[in-house]
């Protein structure tokens, strides 16, 4: 593997891990606050799964970053994170949280399905493992999109509002990273444009069935090193214990 391919691989692995750890943290903020007990349990499980997936990606990146998963999650600052902005946005209401989860789950299903045939074997193996767990997430968030989209006037209005807000952010998932071309050429990672097409083929009909219409809005097309102010607050919370007592073991 040449140096540029290694760099490209590391950038992508860290980006995937950062998406998972930040989304997992947002999901975990619902613990004890979800609208019903069943959902409190479900979202806590989903949060824990996402952290497990982040751990796998960070560990695959470790030979290149030289840092273990804890250092990556707890001892980097906002400007060093490479997650998309969608996952760092505050939770909003349940419609917003479930729609974000749905848009992300659909992206992950499309991505993992393609990564299973990656020419980089560790990536293919991890994708096969993670996809099995993601099936449960995707079904769960898909059902919520229908339930709220086709529910009451109020639930539909909230879901449409969430979609108007989130859609431009979701498209950032498909913005190529600067060195992606090397990964695509090596067969390590799918072409982001094709990934977006595959995602839309699933998401657009499902949203339509749920009576929801994506807005005709410009994508938020920021680079992954640009963040909203919300990430700083999130990290302050997420990293507090690890940074207060760096050598703690439990």
């Amino acid at each position, binding site marked *: 593997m040449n140096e540029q391919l290694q760099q490209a691989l590391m950038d992508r692995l860290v980006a995937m891990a950062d998406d998972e750890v930040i989304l997992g943290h947002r999901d975990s903020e619902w613990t004890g606050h979800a609208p019903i007990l069943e959902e409190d349990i479900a979202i*806590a499980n989903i949060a*824990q799964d996402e952290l*497990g997936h982040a751990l796998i990606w960070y560990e695959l990146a470790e030979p290149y970053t030289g840092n273990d998963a804890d250092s990556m999650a707890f001892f980097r600052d906002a400007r060093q994170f490479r997650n998309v902005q969608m996952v760092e946005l505050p939770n909003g209401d349940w419609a917003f949280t479930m729609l974000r989860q749905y848009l992300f789950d659909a992206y992950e299903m499309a991505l993992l399905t393609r990564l299973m045939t990656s020419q980089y074997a560790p990536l293919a*193996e991890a994708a096969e*493992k993670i996809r*099995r*767990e993601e*099936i*449960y997430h995707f*079904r769960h968030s898909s059902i919520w999109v229908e339930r709220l989209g086709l529910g009451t006037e109020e639930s539909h209005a909230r879901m449409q509002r969430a979609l108007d807000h989130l859609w431009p952010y979701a498209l950032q998932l498909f913005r190529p990273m600067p060195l992606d071309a090397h990964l695509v050429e090596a067969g390590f990672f799918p072409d982001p444009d094709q990934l977006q097409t595959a995602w839309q083929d699933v998401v657009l009909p499902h949203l339509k069935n749920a009576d929801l219409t994506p807005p005709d809005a410009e994508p938020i097309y920021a680079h992954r090193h640009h963040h909203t102010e919300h990430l700083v607050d999130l990290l302050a919370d997420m990293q507090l214990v690890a940074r207060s007592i760096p050598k703690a073991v439990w």
Partner: protein
Amino acid sequence: MSTSEQLTEDAIWQALRQVMDPEIPVVSLVDLGVVRAVETDGAHVRVVMTPTFSGCPALHVMRALVEQKLQDLGAASVDVEMVLNPPWTSDDISPEGREKLRAFGLAPPPVHQGDQTIILQPQVTCPRCGSSRVTVKNTFGSTLCRAIYYCLDCQDAFEQFKPL
């Protein structure tokens, strides 16, 4: 066992059959199918393990329990290696393991051989009365590997080990 005796792979497997899942203390790690391979030169031991769910918090406990058990057995060193390939599936749980799950009150996962229809809509029977008149209450439960069901005959809730 004194350290001068040579460890055998059989003895190691036997010892690992006594190491229970920290969250389901009736099922051993061998029943669960997470121990993939064991090698020894008689003193040093290498164990290859695989996680059930990737975010399972019991994983590091399992690892520590295995190391402790084999040190107690007389191993000079224990090296536990975690692998993801091939990924663990609930089909890897042994028939004995499934029976122990049922006796513990956890409905065992159906054997699915990768069939997603079975995974997403499993036929589940109540581990207490055997009734198939059950309804799913939550596909997520008290741990990553459990779902919550309700038995219409017992009129009580029970948990299922999720198919994966």
